[in-house]
């Protein structure tokens, strides 16, 4: 085992910092204080890891795109891409918690749980073994169950946490069943070996293979918020403390996509299952129901939660088209990193409003442009980016996704319709985004006095705005990074032995 490989470094550094924070807390005399100290420590640790991964990437050392090695963890570009996107989310969440956790209880446990959950998310993207995938999945989920219930005096938060836990535990139980089936057929839990043995599986075991893939879609679908499995999501994202809402919507959801690409997309491709249509139908339902649900909501976090269901639908376009188009998966990854920043910026702006004005209701957002100008502009930019308005980053990733749906060729006759559904949905989503912006800019509230905006959150929002506008104007570097991190599916086949070529 190579102790200097990136995933192990992440585990060791973030893990020891995450466990050190509660120990430091128990040694301090002042109980419950120290929020600022822990926030700084966690932000520092995450930035250190971000630096290590970036140095690895830029050092010119050749890194394989995707690896299915003999060990449990690969050190590849695919993992590095997800690690960077997810670490950006965690750094935004921990930094904004500087303000959010002020005067709240148990800051040490809060930051420690965020760090542990981040390790889990990153390891999901790096894992090449189903056992590792499941353990990392739980390391990601279990701390977030506790974090969702962190506002102990708030009944809504508690109810959301119970619902979130029940669906999360169900999804992990389904995953255990699915992994058990794969293991039973192939005799191994290593993803690469399992896929190779599945190709040569006896004809009469194929039904079990299909059942396993379906169970994987269900298990990962709960975290990704795909449509038949989305019912817990709005309550959980709304009820959780708002920065944790950002962590759930931007972090755990993306980790679900990482797992889905590692397992489902590769398995579907190598096994020549014609599931693209099914995944595309899921994609269309997911974005449509998400957007329709968002239209009737009154609370801003709830609107954002429904919009994140819709965004999962856009990302699914790339996953469903992966076997037919070279740029589809790249588009998905591009949209994943963009959505991670946009959605966490939106949730953190909502957290700023919740801290200063103590409300989530849309009515409180009237006249916000004058009361909290920076928050209002950051929220507007992230909403416009979510809708996919041209100069912003969200536009480019949607463009790549929809374009890949159009140019798939004659084999996928429904490709253009998928693109049309995506465009119509983006137009629909602009409806409720514009409604929030209208409340902030055009209407006047009863109280128009300027409020002091929380400082750490403002810094995070400025960073997010630079990211969204900057990579909107100059999108090439991130698009290149995304396409370089995508497994080249046709090469994957040539590597695997004795695959029947269609």
């Amino acid at each position, binding site marked *: 085992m190579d102790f200097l490989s990136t995933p192990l470094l992440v585990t060791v550094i973030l*893990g020891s910092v995450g466990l050190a924070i509660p120990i430091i807390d128990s040694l301090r005399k002042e109980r419950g204080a120290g929020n600022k100290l822990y926030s700084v420590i966690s932000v520092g640790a995450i930035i250190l890891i971000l630096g290590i991964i970036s140095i690895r990437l830029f050092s010119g050392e050749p890194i394989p795109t995707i690896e299915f090695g003999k060990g449990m963890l690969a050190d590849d570009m695919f993992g590095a891409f997800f690690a960077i996107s997810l670490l950006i989310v965690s750094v935004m969440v921990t930094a904004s918690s500087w303000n959010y956790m002020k005067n709240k209880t148990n800051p040490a446990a809060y930051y420690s749980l965020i760090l542990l959950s981040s390790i889990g998310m990153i390891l999901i993207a790096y894992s090449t073994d189903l056992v590792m995938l499941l353990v990392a999945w739980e390391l990601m989920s279990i701390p977030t169950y506790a974090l969702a219930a962190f506002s102990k005096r708030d009944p809504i938060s508690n109810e959301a946490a119970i619902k979130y836990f029940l669906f999360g535990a169900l999804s992990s139980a389904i995953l255990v069943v699915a992994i058990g089936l794969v293991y039973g057929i192939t005799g191994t839990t290593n993803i690469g070996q399992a896929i190779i043995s599945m190709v040569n599986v006896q004809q009469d075991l194929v039904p079990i293979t299909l059942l396993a893939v379906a169970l994987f879609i269900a298990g990962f679908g709960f975290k990704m918020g795909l449509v038949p499995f989305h019912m817990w999501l709005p309550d959980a994202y709304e009820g959780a403390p708002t920065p944790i809402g950002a962590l759930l919507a931007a972090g755990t959801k993306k980790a679900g996509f990482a797992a889905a690409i590692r397992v489902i997309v590769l398995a579907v491709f190598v096994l020549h299952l014609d599931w693209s249509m099914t995944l595309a139908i899921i994609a269309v339902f997911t974005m449509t129901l998400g957007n329709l649900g968002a239209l009737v909501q009154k609370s801003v976090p709830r609107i954002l939660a429904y919009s994140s269901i819709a965004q999962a639908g856009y990302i699914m376009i790339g996953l469903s088209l992966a076997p037919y188009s070279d740029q589809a998966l790249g588009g998905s990854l591009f949209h994943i990193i963009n959505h991670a920043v946009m959605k966490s910026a939106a949730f953190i702006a909502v957290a700023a409003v919740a801290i200063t004005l103590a409300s989530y209701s849309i009515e409180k957002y009237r006249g916000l442009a004058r009361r909290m100008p920076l928050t209002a502009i950051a929220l507007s930019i992230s909403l416009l980016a979510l809708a996919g308005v041209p100069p912003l980053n969200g536009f480019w990733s949607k463009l790549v996704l929809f374009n890949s749906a159009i140019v798939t060729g004659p084999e996928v006759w429904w490709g253009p319709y998928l693109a049309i559904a995506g465009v119509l949905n983006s137009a629909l989503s602009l409806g409720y985004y514009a409604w929030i912006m209208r409340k902030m800019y055009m209407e006047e509230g009863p109280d128009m006095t300027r409020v002091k905006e929380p400082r750490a959150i403002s810094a995070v929002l400025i960073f997010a705005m630079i990211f969204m506008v900057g990579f909107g104007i100059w999108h090439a570097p991130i698009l290149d990074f995304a396409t370089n991190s995508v497994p080249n599916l046709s090469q994957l086949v040539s590597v695997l032995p004795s695959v029947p070529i269609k």
Partner: protein
Amino acid sequence: MVDAYFVGIAILTIGTSIVALESKELIYGAIALAISMLGIAGFFLLLDAQFVAMFQITVYVGAVAVLVIFTVMLVRTQDLFSTKDDKGRKVGGIILALVTLGGVGAIFLVSGITNPMFGNLDSDPIDIKEIGKSMLTYYSPALIVLGLTLAGAVIGALALARREGLLKENESIN
């Protein structure tokens, strides 16, 4: 064909898991759940997996079930658990369960694992030493991560269960 032990354990396990869900008093349900977990451990013994059976008894029966029973007794009050189930929902649930049983069962029955060649369980049992070896070699990263998971669960559960009377909270902003 199955032997008598198998039939006995199967009836015990399935019966107690139905009792766990349907008993009037929640505490009896918790005890039935513990017995059902013991039944699963019995199955593990039939499958020559003694170590997993031991682990199942210590962790599930010894820790999880006891924890559940304590929680049930802690939150117990007279009229809390007298909820009646919705009739329509109950019928729907039974239908869904039967569909799952039939559908998934059918998938397995038409597949190759009913073949006696495939379902051969007569080989020598696995050596427990092999489990230990693979835990410390191939599975060692997963073991580290599992340790972090358990630490996360402990930190989370402690943070949740702790009572704060001293600090002022203004958490409910809705």
